């Protein structure tokens, strides 16, 4: 297709994805507690506030804890599941797989309402572990997707060769399958981690303000009092995501992790 058209389309998409963040970054630099763009005066004090004001760093720590454990749970579900579906012929495995992929085929608000209903029935509403478990199950889809791609790329003849040489099932897993899918496992963990860190509606409906996560905190200040700290935190979030994904891209083959074929 036409070179100029292509450049224009790429520029449009990049500008569209970056413009809101540029304004947020500008707003975060205001000297006084105002949300002007272009900023008035230049100051980094709101970035300092994000790390020193407990009403901001506590939710940040909560979010990091939730994201770490939720991503571990997501991976702990996805790894055995994708392996069994790939390796064995088990009839109900496909049904379990469907449950793991289904959350992304549901409007997010329904998943959140389901979590709220579940934890109310179990009389655990508001406990920190509820958001960890609900995030874990919801985000299983991501490692499940990356691991399925990874296992598809693994040559089954390798496994058969190992078996004919007398390797047991667990030896095959340890020496061939696991090392091969490790990058896909890490990518799946990272995706789940970053999405949990940013997830709002499930966190709001399971723990809300009793175990405030960062998105819940940001939303609350969006409604009850703007502050440039919100902008500073948003910039830090975006920067963190860029650094993490850029690192994944440096260490692994990002196009392949996302489902492209062998290197061309």
């Amino acid at each position, binding site marked *: 297709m036409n070179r100029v058209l292509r450049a224009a389309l790429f520029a*449009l998409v990049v500008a569209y994805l970056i413009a809101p963040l540029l304004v947020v970054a500008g*707003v975060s630099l205001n000297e006084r507690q105002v949300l002007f763009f272009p900023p008035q005066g230049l100051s980094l004090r709101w970035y300092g506030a994000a790390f020193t004001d407990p009403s901001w760093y506590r939710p940040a720590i909560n979010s990091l804890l939730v994201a770490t454990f939720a991503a571990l749970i997501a991976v702990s579900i996805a790894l055995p599941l994708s392996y069994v579906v790939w390796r064995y012929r088990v009839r109900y495995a496909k049904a379990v797989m469907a449950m*793991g992929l289904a959350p992304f085929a549901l409007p*997010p608000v329904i998943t959140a309402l389901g979590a709220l209903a579940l934890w109310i029935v179990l009389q655990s509403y508001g406990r920190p572990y509820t958001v960890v478990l609900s995030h874990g199950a919801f985000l299983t889809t991501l490692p499940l997707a990356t691991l399925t791609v990874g296992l598809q790329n693994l040559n*089954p003849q390798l496994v058969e060769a190992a078996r004919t040489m007398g390797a047991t099932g667990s030896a095959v897993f340890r020496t061939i399958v696991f090392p091969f899918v490790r990058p896909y496992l890490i990518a799946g963990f990272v995706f789940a981690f970053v999405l949990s860190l940013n997830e709002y509606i499930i966190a709001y409906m399971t723990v809300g303000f009793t175990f405030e996560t960062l998105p819940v905190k940001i939303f609350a200040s969006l409604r009850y009092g703007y502050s440039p700290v919100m902008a500073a935190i948003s910039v830090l979030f975006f920067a963190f995501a860029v650094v993490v994904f850029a690192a994944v891209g440096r260490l692994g083959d990002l196009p392949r992790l996302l489902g*492209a074929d062998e290197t061309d």
Partner: protein
Amino acid sequence: MNRAPAQSRPQHRRERPEAGPWPHLLLAWPSLALTVLFLVPLGTIAALGFFRRIPAGFFEVGFVTDNYARALDSFHLERLGVSVMLALAATLITLLVAVPFTFLLTRRPRRAQVPYLVLVLASLSLSEVIVGFAWSLLLSRTSGISNVLVRIGLMETAVAWSPGLWAVILAFVFVALPLAILSLYPTFSRLDQELPEAAGTMGAPPLVGFVTVVLPLVRRAVAATAALVFIFVLGAYVIPQTLGRPAHWTIPVHITDQAIMKNHLPLAAALAIVLLVMSSVIAVAIVVIVSGRPPRAEPSVPAP
């Protein structure tokens, strides 16, 4: 790092042993976790829609139909209509950008794709809350584009474009675009690199080649992506809440309002089931119309 030995695609018929208790033991935790954390909650919502609300507390077990009657009254049906129209508009705009963008991106060398993929992933992971905040700033009077346009003399006075209909749609497209690009990416990047060039050497102009040669090959992936984006946008809560006027509040806003603010969980559940049925019916319709054939059970990831 993860270079695999040369091989054909997984169409490979593999011998899959049924190896004693191992697979069942391995599946125990995934089955348990997903049943309790996914299936049971869905079932609970389905049941809750019929339960009776207790004004002081949450609800009591029962079988009443007033929740569904209210979920289907003219007010909520109108809200449902607005939600569907907004989601369809956002889905259409998203695909019009994502399909050519993803196609052109996958024609680039792998290395050149990486920065774009990083940007897309980072945008995808951005909290809906941050997206709502960012767009409300961008479209506001004092810190947004219009303010900048006034400064450089392109506009007379600054205006606020948020809250408003286009604020909601623009932010919907912002969250949907990265999702659509990543969903189209596997199929598009497995397309034969030479296909469009072949069409070109046969004398077809680029756009004609794209429409007649490429699009038919990727119709299923486009259809699945359209359904995915539609469902995702239809279920969004924060964006219509922060960037829309009450006239643009979608069903998720009312579900959340009933569940949290008004403490009316049974009505929220009935609304959720109505939304679920509606979104499934329309998603299937989208797949059938766009792909031109009935939906298949499996996802459309592998290339045709």
